[in-house]
């Protein structure tokens, strides 16, 4: 029991640190691609700390107040539902309590809270961004769920441990090789999930100031940043478990998540942005079709 | 065929002919009074047939006095009386209504009384 709690705390802490660090790295890498020097890799820690220590802040009502907590809770819930290191049962945290369906749906917990907070802020731009984000989310979830279902049905299990366990027979048994089309679909869906360009319509600083968190300041924003870092690590972890055979040690975990993260960073820094309806159509068409190929294969 | 039978059948034929002429008139005439007339004609024909239905050859009219022993069936004649009375009443009503209706529509032509339809 105690070791379980320790493991959970360790997981959350590591994810937070790693998530912020990854954010910093991504900023640096993007800067390098632009031909700039870029910030320090620790810049995100500095930002979060600064925001946390701002001396005043405002709020617009109960839901606004609760939204960052929803966000962080959702992120941690997703994180704990995924096994961290394969083979070390202690790090499986809460993953016994649910399967991929639960994971797919609990991912919305944070998003919904965020959207509610944005709505409560009373700022029209925040709500416009939410409307775009929801529209886009409903599209990428289509291809993502097709991919997940294809993989899960192909492996005859919905349990994430089961999916990971099925990939332990060497690299060729990774799902990205066994289900290449579904994986491609899932990986394309991963970009809008991380709000990476070309699907970055939600946080559009130029037209709708920064999207949903327009009105968030200070400590709220700091929590939101932390939540986002945690959430992106949770998603990375899920993808590593889903497609890349899980991680057999902490090191390989860091490596795999890092590489996967770099994929979004590189893609997002070289592509321009889709308009919402373009992005919706693209997501309905390309990744869904790809994932459907594997689904049909599984069905036959 | 004796004259009685000839009379018997010609009575039926006349009645039927009157009915047919009346119906033809009803269906083809346009003036409302002509239609009334055609009805009266057909009514007369029907009355004839009704009388015919009680007709028995070589019998007298059912006006009972001592000399007459064999009369025709008296019932249809009684019926015909009723029928004629009713026919007159209906015809009168028809004409009244027809005249008033033609006053309302400004024409006695039945084709102009088509406000109510479909």
């Amino acid at each position, binding site marked *: 029991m105690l070791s379980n709690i320790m493991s959970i705390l360790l997981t959350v802490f590591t994810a937070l640190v790693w998530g912020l660090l990854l954010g910093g790295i991504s900023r640096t890498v993007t800067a390098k691609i632009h031909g700039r020097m870029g910030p320090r890799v620790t810049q995100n820690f500095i930002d979060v700390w600064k925001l946390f220590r701002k001396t005043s802040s405002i709020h617009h009502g109960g839901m606004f107040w609760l939204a960052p907590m*929803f966000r962080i809770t959702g992120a941690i819930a997703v994180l704990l539902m995924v096994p961290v290191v394969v083979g070390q049962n202690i790090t499986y945290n809460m993953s016994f309590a649910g399967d991929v369906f*639960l994971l*797919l*749906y609990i991912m919305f917990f944070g998003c919904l809270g965020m959207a509610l907070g944005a709505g409560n802020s009373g700022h029209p731009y925040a709500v416009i961004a939410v409307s775009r984000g929801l529209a886009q989310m*409903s599209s990428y979830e289509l291809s993502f769920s097709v991919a997940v279902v294809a993989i899960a*049905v192909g492996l005859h299990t919905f349990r994430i441990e089961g999916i990971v366990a099925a990939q332990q027979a060497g690299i060729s048994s990774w799902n990205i090789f066994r289900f290449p089309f579904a994986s491609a679909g899932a990986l394309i869906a991963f970009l809008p999930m991380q709000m990476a360009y070309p699907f970055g319509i939600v946080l559009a600083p130029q037209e709708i100031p920064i999207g949903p968190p327009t009105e968030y300041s200070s400590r709220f924003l700091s929590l939101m940043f932390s939540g986002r870092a945690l959430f992106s690590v949770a998603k990375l972890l899920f993808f590593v478990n889903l497609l890349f055979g899980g991680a057999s040690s902490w090191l390989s975990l860091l490596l795999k998540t890092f590489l996967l993260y770099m994929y979004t960073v590189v893609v997002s820094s070289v592509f321009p942005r889709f308009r919402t309806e373009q992005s919706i159509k693209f997501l309905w068409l390309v990744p869904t079709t790809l994932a459907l190929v594997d689904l049909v294969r599984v069905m036959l | 065929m004796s004259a009685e039978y000839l009379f018997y059948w010609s009575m039926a034929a006349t009645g039927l002919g009157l009915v047919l002429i009346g119906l033809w008139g009803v269906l083809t005439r346009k003036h409302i009074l002509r239609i009334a007339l055609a009805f009266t004609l057909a009514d007369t024909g029907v009355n004839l047939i009704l009388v015919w239905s009680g007709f028995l050859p070589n019998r007298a009219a059912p006006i009972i006095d001592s000399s007459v022993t064999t009369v025709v069936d008296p019932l249809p004649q009684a019926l015909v009386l009723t029928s004629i009375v009713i026919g007159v009443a209906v015809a009168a009503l*028809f004409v009244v209504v027809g005249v008033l209706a033609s006053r309302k529509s400004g024409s006695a032509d039945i084709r102009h009384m088509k406000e109510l339809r479909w």
Partner: protein
Amino acid sequence: MVKALAVFLPLLGAFINAWLPGKHSKASRFVSYTVLTAGLAFVVLLSIQLGAWNLADLSNSVIFHSGVGSPPLSINLEITAGGTLAALAMYAAVIFSIHRFALHTPKSQPLILAMLTASLGLLFATDIFNSFVFLEIGSIATIGLTAASRCGSRWEAAIKVALVSGLVTILYLLAVAVLYRSTGMLTMAALGSLSGGAAVLVSILLLTVIVTELKAFPLAGWGLDFYQGASSNVAGLYSATWSLAVLMWAAKVLPLLPIGNPIIYAWIGAGGLVLSQLAGLRAGSAGRILGYSTSAYASLLLVAAGTTTGAFYTRTVLVLMVFSSLSKFSLFMLGNPWKNRGWSGYGTVLMLIPVLLLAGIPPLPVFWAKFAFLKHLALHFPVVFYAVLAGLFLEAVYLFRFWADRSEKISVKAFSKPSAVAGVFIILVAAIWITQLWWGQLDFSGSIIASSTLRNIFHALFAAGTLLCLPGVFKRIGSERNYWFWLLISGASLTLLPAAGNGITFYILWEISAFAAVVGVSKGTGARNGAFWYAVFASFSGYLLLAGILLSRGSFVMAGLPALLMTLAALVKLGQFGTHLWNVRTYPAAPGTMPAYLSGTASKAAVLLLVAVALNATGGALPWGRAMAWAGALTALAGAVLAALAPDYKKLLAYASVSQIGYILVGLGLASILGWTAALYHTVHHMIFKMALFLGAASVLYRTGTTRFNNLGGLVKKMPWTFAFTLIAVISFAGIPPLAGFGGKWLLYNGLVEAGWLPILIVAMFASVVAFLYSYRLLHGVFLGQLSPKNAHAKEAPLALLLPQGILAASIMVLGFKPTLLLNILVPALKAIPGLSGLAPVIQGDMVLTTMGTWNAWMVGIMVMVVFGIAFVFYWISGHKPKYVGQLDIGFAGEMPPSADEVHYSNNFFRPYTRALAFLPRIHAEKIFCGVSKTFSMLGDGVRMLFTGDGRTYLAHSLLFLVLLFVFLNGGM
């Protein structure tokens, strides 16, 4: 001899009245009332003497002669037991209506009394020639009354009646002549002794006369014109006396005609029924609509004459004709457009009762006769059965439209209150009286759902749903009227529904609950359209259900066509996509907590029906389960998309309801234990959250007076509790884990994967994601964003609305954290059903296991709560005190927002989504329905071209009918 007074008293009154000077209307009225009351008393005595009140045996009769000698010289009357009841109705109608004539055309009283005499005479006449006399008197009285009224087109109507009665006279007398010539007798019994050519001749002549006089379909033209042209008083009186008399007379004569095989009546009747009702769809004026309805009942009489015999025939015809004539009488009396009143007065109910009577809705008296009759048809004459059913449905459609269009024009004064009360009382008494005759057919053993667990679940569902709607019934706004009574009736019959043990019981409860709800809906503001759509779809689904029950030959449902029909009935009732139109129109229009009841509770009746059909027909797996699942999945998707784009709170919820119901269909279509568990779990859950949402909508409506998103927003500041409960319901139905909604989805997906129906799984999952769109739209559009100054006065919902929401929200929480409470009941019950395939989910403590997935709701819930709690506490104790700022204090490029309304984003909320969907062809279900209705309208237009309005055409119709009949019968022989 004294008994003949019942017939001739009115004649006496007529004579006296005719001699009275016209100015003394008081005196003449006194005479009329005296005469009528005395006559009525006689008739009552007679009916008691003949034992007519026990409908089981109507064969008693008294014969007496008036005048001298024996018939045909004397007028010969046979007072039958059934006839006394019809006479009772005639007397009642005249007494109810005579004061209106006294008001408007005092001189017409002799004519009224003459018409009554003629009607009574025709009712009791046993002699062909006597009948002729009464027919002529009736015609003359009709023409006279029509001409004496004050209607603009009275002359034209009168002339058409006169034309036709002229022709009828001719044909009738010809038949009399031939009859007398052949048999020498003129009694009706003599008809039977005809043979050979004379028989044919008399048959076709009399049949033409009867069909013309009945105004049955091909020869109905003059009657329609008459109903349209005559004043409503005259038409009403006519339909209650003369029309009824002709019907009863025809019912007497038809079986006696030596026509060979009487099935020909049925063909004429059935064909005429369908065609005339098609034409009736296009009828415009009130009189004409009711004329078509009369025509329908005439056709029904023909069908009855062709297919039934004996006491059954007599009883059926008597009940059908008497009550339909009375309803038409009251509709004519009510439909008088004198005063324009708002919709949803007493008038709506007053008018709905006769309409429901005509449509044969239980427990009103006509239903019983119709049910027995249709049952007979279904058993022996299936083709006629379908035709009759189709015709009756078409009739119901235009009657409901008539109701929706007309009833706002009713002035209650027009039908003075005592008489209205008396009328309702009579109908109630009749309903009770007739119901007790057939009471034995009802069965409340609940045997159609064998599993008592399922039955209890549904009992509890319906009872709880109704009870939770009740506290808020008095929180009405604006012109909404009291609807609690109808809600209660509907809810009570629903609660009984699972206890139904056979088809008729089920059907009766089903229809009572539906049509009580229709009345309830009609109490809303501007609910005309909604109530009309609900009525039409409810009756459509009712007729499908009826057909299914009747075709099942005694058992509740048989596999094959009956089961399919009943499935369709359930789908229509659920608002399966395509028929969702009624949900979307009805829910927003319904008053107060009514939509919560309709969507949350009443729609579950259809789920119950589906379960019952599946259990009884095949023991679980319906052959079209897969199609149903597809339909459900597509419904879920389409409903979700439409909900996301809806501009109105209640409309959004209506679409959401359509969408959520799709999941239930998918689950039931699966026909596996998992699928049914999912479906029933979702049924319970849907009832809970949808009621919470609609009660929330009712609260918002109550406090702000609007449900348009454009006028709402920011209400979280004013109605925090309502928001909290709505939020819980929304999170739950979006399927986000710690709350209850996820369970249904998880079970369903597992079931779908187990069955290998992956495409449906994908569609269902996609639909559930689209659900986020509208769930956010709902929360933001109403509660978040900027509070409009228009709603600044709003405050927290009243406790009567809030408390049920609180209970529902609490149960969502409980079900979310401990779904095993419900699953532990459901799973064993479903395991016991042999027809369900697949493996049952294994429940170990809080853990639910399927072959492929796991779900531990308790652990997930605890985890989320703990993390949330830690974050909350951390937040709280870290000394962070944000300042609450006003709603217009937003970073708005340095500007101050001009007003809250202008910065509230509400229009075109999911505009990008609409744009992305633009490539789809816009197939509106509405358009499909428009197409269907246009096709029917075209057909109807084609049919009604027959009735050109030229009086001679009608004569030609009759003659043509005669000729065709002659050719047909001779060809047949």
